[in-house]
């Protein structure tokens, strides 16, 4: 049974990305020291970005190895968006308690660390997207068909945002006031930020689904 298959390489790169994300979120490596100051500061995010790069690259090449069935540029970028928005959502979910105290954000060191983590993820996302775009050079990376696909995916993202906002409104309206008293303003702000991210995540998920379906149709002939 062959081990070095595209599918196995894809799974391995996802595992590496998962380990990188776990390292990044745990943050314990930031206390490791060596002779050069703080060389481990970006270890987690670097492992994560490397894992994401190879997973997206293996997705681009396609399961069949046929260049005609390669994922189009926008599908590639959608995969990247899905992975990074998932990482941002996981970061927000795991840091929920950091926003609970009724203290201003500027006096909350844990909330500040969450903000820096999110900022690092967004910057890595932007850099990786820019690098990917440069790989295509002057080639066309989207056209009228991509716009149609993006429109359909965007509609699903908007539905997800609307549903999430309605859920928050219902929670605020129906939950007991004693329970709501534990809600701080930063926590509500985080809930709304999560809502926006959920919308983008659904958008990316649907894009990935549409492009995968499209490629599957091409492979089926």
């Amino acid at each position: 049974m062959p081990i070095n298959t595209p599918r196995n390489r894809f799974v391995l790169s996802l595992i590496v990305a998962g380990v990188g994300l776990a390292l990044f979120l745990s943050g314990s490596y930031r206390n490791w020291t060596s002779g050069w100051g703080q060389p481990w500061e970006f270890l987690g995010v670097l492992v994560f970005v490397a894992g994401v790069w190879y997973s997206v690259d293996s997705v681009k090449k396609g399961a069949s190895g046929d260049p005609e069935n390669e994922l189009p540029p926008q599908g590639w970028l959608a995969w990247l968006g899905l992975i990074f928005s998932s990482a941002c959502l996981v970061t927000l979910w795991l840091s929920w308690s950091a926003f609970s105290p009724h203290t201003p954000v500027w006096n909350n060191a844990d909330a500040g660390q969450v903000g820096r983590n999110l900022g690092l993820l967004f910057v890595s996302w932007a850099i990786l997207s820019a690098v990917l775009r440069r790989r295509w050079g002057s080639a066309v990376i989207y056209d009228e068909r991509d716009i149609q696909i993006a429109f359909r995916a965007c509609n699903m993202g908007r539905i997800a945002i609307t549903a999430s906002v309605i859920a928050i409104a219902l929670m605020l309206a129906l939950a007991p006031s004693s329970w709501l008293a534990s809600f701080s303003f930063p926590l509500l702000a985080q809930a709304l930020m999560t809502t926006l991210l959920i919308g983008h995540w659904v958008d990316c998920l649907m894009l990935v689904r549409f492009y995968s379906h499209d490629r599957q149709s091409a492979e089926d002939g």
Partner: protein
Amino acid sequence: MPARHSITNQIRRYRFEQGEMTQQALANTCGVTRQTIIALEANRYAPSLELAFRVANALQVPITEVFQWTPPD
């Protein structure tokens, strides 16, 4: 099951009549991605009027030679 459209085309045939023009070459000439040409040839995508004209122009044949429309029953 891929969606089929009532607009069919002869792109593949005219591509080969144009000295075996590749899908990528046609895509570059028309300003679209190769995946769009693949989807067009498989009748999985109905192009805009402008793209239809661009394809016909790239293949140097009248648009009605490349694209056909079948009225629904």
